[in-house]
């Protein structure tokens, strides 16, 4: 396992290789402290992603998903051409993990069309297929995301922590005391977080930060007090904080109540991608989206339901400094 100093050195080297405007280089600096600048979050929508009117489908249209992703990445990076945009985001000679989320079963998992669109763009930007690893906690969750296990390094890889195993040594930060998956600690140089937006019976909302429960051996030990401050503390663990740099959040479909499991009667289609580096800002916006939909459905707020996601504010506090939940410090780019 690389230590933090070695890792940051590699990040810096990668940044030189891919240019001074590299987001990765910026992220390395941000690992030390969140800058005073606004956090940029792109909110990209396509209302026809799942079809129109009564002619809708459970899975979004693949071509539209790819277009939506391209528009979102272009808006984020300022590069109109996808390959240039992706080259500015990732070190193309490194191993890139895609942490997906299949816990809610096939009905509410990171969409296969989005995973494959990201993997395709990474390869077009120059990342070798075998240097892309799609992963989640266990084989069943991966299958829910449409993936089958493949460890052949000549192809796009997909495997889970129950295949790769966990570190023997515990990692700790605050109340988080867990063992990390070797996929994160050993196999990946950088991870793109690919959560799916859901209501959560315990935590209130699950999106960017909560998705990290899928990189630890026993997430059930982090559920006390509505997962607060466990979600925030978990994300402060240096390996997670440093390697999980960028989020491509799937809000193409979502459950607004009864999550994190799949309840089709509480499913809705926001048809949205949320993209950015600031995991706290992303979760703050995700919370707003869930509340807006709950109000529309006549449901109580998460506060009134006794489960507001307080871990978001905890993650933004001066001790953890993982990002911002202050609307004034979030630059929303809605497309």
């Amino acid at each position, binding site marked *: 396992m690389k230590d933090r100093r070695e890792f940051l050195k590699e990040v810096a080297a990668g940044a030189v290789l891919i240019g001074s405007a590299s987001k990765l280089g910026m992220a390395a600096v941000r690992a030390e402290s969140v800058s005073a600048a606004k956090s940029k979050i792109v909110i990209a929508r396509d209302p026809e992603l799942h079809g129109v009117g009564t002619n809708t489908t459970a899975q979004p249209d693949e071509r539209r998903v790819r277009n939506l992703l391209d528009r979102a990445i272009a808006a984020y990076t300022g590069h109109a051409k996808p390959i240039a945009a992706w080259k500015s985001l990732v070190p193309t000679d490194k191993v890139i993990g895609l942490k997906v989320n299949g816990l809610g*079963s096939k009905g509410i998992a990171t969409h296969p069309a989005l995973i494959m669109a990201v993997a395709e763009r990474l390869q077009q930007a120059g990342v070798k297929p075998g240097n892309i690893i799609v992963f989640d906690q266990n084989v069943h969750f991966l299958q829910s995301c449409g993936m089958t296990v493949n460890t052949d390094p000549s192809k796009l890889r997909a495997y889970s922590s129950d295949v790769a195993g966990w570190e023997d040594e515990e990692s700790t930060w605050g109340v988080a005391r867990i063992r990390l998956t070797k996929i994160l600690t050993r196999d990946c140089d950088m991870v793109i977080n690919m959560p799916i937006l859901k209501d959560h*019976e315990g935590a209130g909302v699950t999106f960017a930060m909560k998705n990290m429960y899928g990189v630890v051996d026993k997430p059930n030990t982090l559920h006390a007090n509505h997962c607060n401050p466990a979600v925030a503390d978990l994300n402060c663990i240096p390996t997670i904080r440093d390697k999980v740099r960028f989020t491509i959040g799937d809000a193409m479909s979502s459950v607004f109540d009864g999550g*994190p499991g799949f309840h*089709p009667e509480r499913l809705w289609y926001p048809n949205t991608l949320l993209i950015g580096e600031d995991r706290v800002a992303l979760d703050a916006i995700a919370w707003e989206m869930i509340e807006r939909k709950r109000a529309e459905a006549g449901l109580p707020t998460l506060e009134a339901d006794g489960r507001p996601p307080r871990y978001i504010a905890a993650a933004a506090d001066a001790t953890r400094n993982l990002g911002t939940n202050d609307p004034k410090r979030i630059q929303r780019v809605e497309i």
Partner: protein
Amino acid sequence: MLSNNNLKAAVTALTVAIFLAGTGCKKSIVDPFPASGAIAGWQKTTDTRVFASKDLWQYIDGDADHYIQAGVVTTSTSDYNYQGNLEAVVDVYTMGDSAGAHKIFAGDVSGSGKGVSLGDEGVAFAQSVTFRKGASLVRIVAYSSTPDTQQALLALAHGVEAKL
């Protein structure tokens, strides 16, 4: 004097008798999952997975806590496919008592579902059927919706109910 084989048989019989006495075993284990073809059009596509209460997080993580609070003992799950084009999952939660099963059922069925005659209480939505029979809580969920989905799910639900 007992031969080796007879001795082995006697030890085995004694072990089984002690185990059964110790576990208070009174009835055989119920398998509530209809086999492929047992319900017209339905195929069972995966082996049944069973989770003890302490391991339920491995299946549903954040959802596990409220089942545990309601007294879940075991959870069994298996995937099904209807006529090659509709995927569904059947979850059977065996609770400690019927009150625990009712608690989960009541929390699950709010909304626009229609009551159905299944077990002690049941409700159907366009893409899901939930019912309780004694201490068993059954949820059947389809991953997509067609005009036939609800009828197909109800047929499968009756098949599960008959085996409980």
